[in-house]
């Protein structure tokens, strides 16, 4: 399967994300909105990630203003049946250091 559809090899999943905790975009990450969603580039790890929906971009952009990752998804209008997929996406972003837990 092409890696553009899976987490990067060697990236652990699940350990660094807690849906109930507050997150923010890593200070070394830049977002570039695109019609399909956004590009995210981490200047520290020099990795590029692809956010494949504008909704996910809205979620990531609002993380710093919301009390938790889950609330950021709800506030961005993610429907209940898609919350799982968006939590997975945030987990992958946390695992790759694109987003990080913030001190509330």
């Amino acid at each position, binding site marked *: 399967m092409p890696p553009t*559809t899976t987490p990067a090899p060697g990236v652990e999943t699940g350990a660094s994300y807690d849906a109930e905790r507050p997150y923010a975009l890593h200070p070394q990450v830049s977002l570039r909105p695109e019609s*399909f969603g956004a590009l995210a580039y981490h200047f520290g790890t020099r990795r590029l990630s692809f956010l494949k929906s504008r909704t996910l971009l809205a979620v990531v952009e609002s993380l710093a203003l919301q009390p938790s990752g889950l609330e950021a998804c709800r506030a961005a209008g993610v429907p209940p049946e898609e919350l799982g997929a968006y939590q997975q*996406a945030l987990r992958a972003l946390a695992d790759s250091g694109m987003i990080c837990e913030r001190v509330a």
Partner: protein
Amino acid sequence: MTVTVPSAGIRLVDRFEQGLDAPICLTWELTYACNLACVHCLSSSGRRDPRELSTDEGKALIDEFERMQIFYVNIGGGEPTIRSDFWELVDHATAHHVGVKFSTNGSRITEEVAVRLAGSDYVDVQISLDGATAEINDAVRGDGSFATAVTAMERLAAAGFAGFKLSVVVTRHNVGQLDGFKAIADRYGAQLRLTRLRPSGRGADVWDELHPTAGQQRELYDWLVARGQDVLTGDSFFHLAAYGGALPGLNLCGAGRVVCLVDPVGDVYACPFAIHDEFLAGNVRSSGGFTSVWRQSDLFTELRAPQNAGACGSCGHYDACRGGCMAAKFFTGLPLDGPDPECVLGHGEHALDARGDVEAPRPSPDHSSRPRRVPVALTPGRRPGRQCDQSPLAGSVPDLGDD
């Protein structure tokens, strides 16, 4: 991930093939001047071109990159550090939120430079080496170049620069040294990067004798699958995907779609491996600047239109390899809508045999002439896609095509 996200129904690769408002990354060759004369140099570098961009023009270009939100540029040459304003341009880029990765033969990586590089999060460096031994390397890159590169790596490691890149063009003579390259990279805390030999620039002269054999390509692929987890490839081996599974990367030809090349005189080409009038989209000195070339040039518009699989249309592997590398086809005299010369199914070899006495196009040294039309046939339809990826996040890539 299997949960449906309705807005993510279109494959990212299809989006990228239609082009973006700005490149994901681009290669910027600062000068054609070089203290080496590598036999496979894809930009036929050696002497400085008197028309090269000035410092002010370079800075203005960086400002444009910043406005377009281009995250980073791959700076190359020639040997970019030869330019007296090299650090001035690097500092201007990082001050304007444009990251820099530059390729060098290592000759100007002094201890002071190594310390300076180790202290910057926004500058990455890539040391070129084309043999894991001096014998193999120097035959391609010139006498003493192995020692020069090793000294540079020692200095970077001593300065505490972790994760710089050791960049290798895979050839018939070094493909058996992959473990050796990995060991060198590990020794200096570097990350190994393997890229494909293209018949571009002076590479056209030596491609026949230097490109890996069919059997070696298979070995390379197997090595990358088995040992290549932390090895970068610049997305350059996507033609090998037809062996059975894609290697890490976007796995598409990004030329004029998500990547491009700005050469030392400001000419914008579709990719670093296509320095030829045929792939010249415009010049950054023109009225609309780089932005206009990227967004409006006839060539890039054409490259972003649906492409015809041509002779590859009946092949069951087309969706994996996408017909391979445009530049590799062009400079070996093959039609762009047919197989890559290194097609893993052997179709490229047959096509090469069938060329007869047709002369392959020569790299064009004159950057000022008008681009000719790229002979790609256009069709309105798109091929049926692979299964749509339905996750809202589409993973990440560490490295896109550059030199």
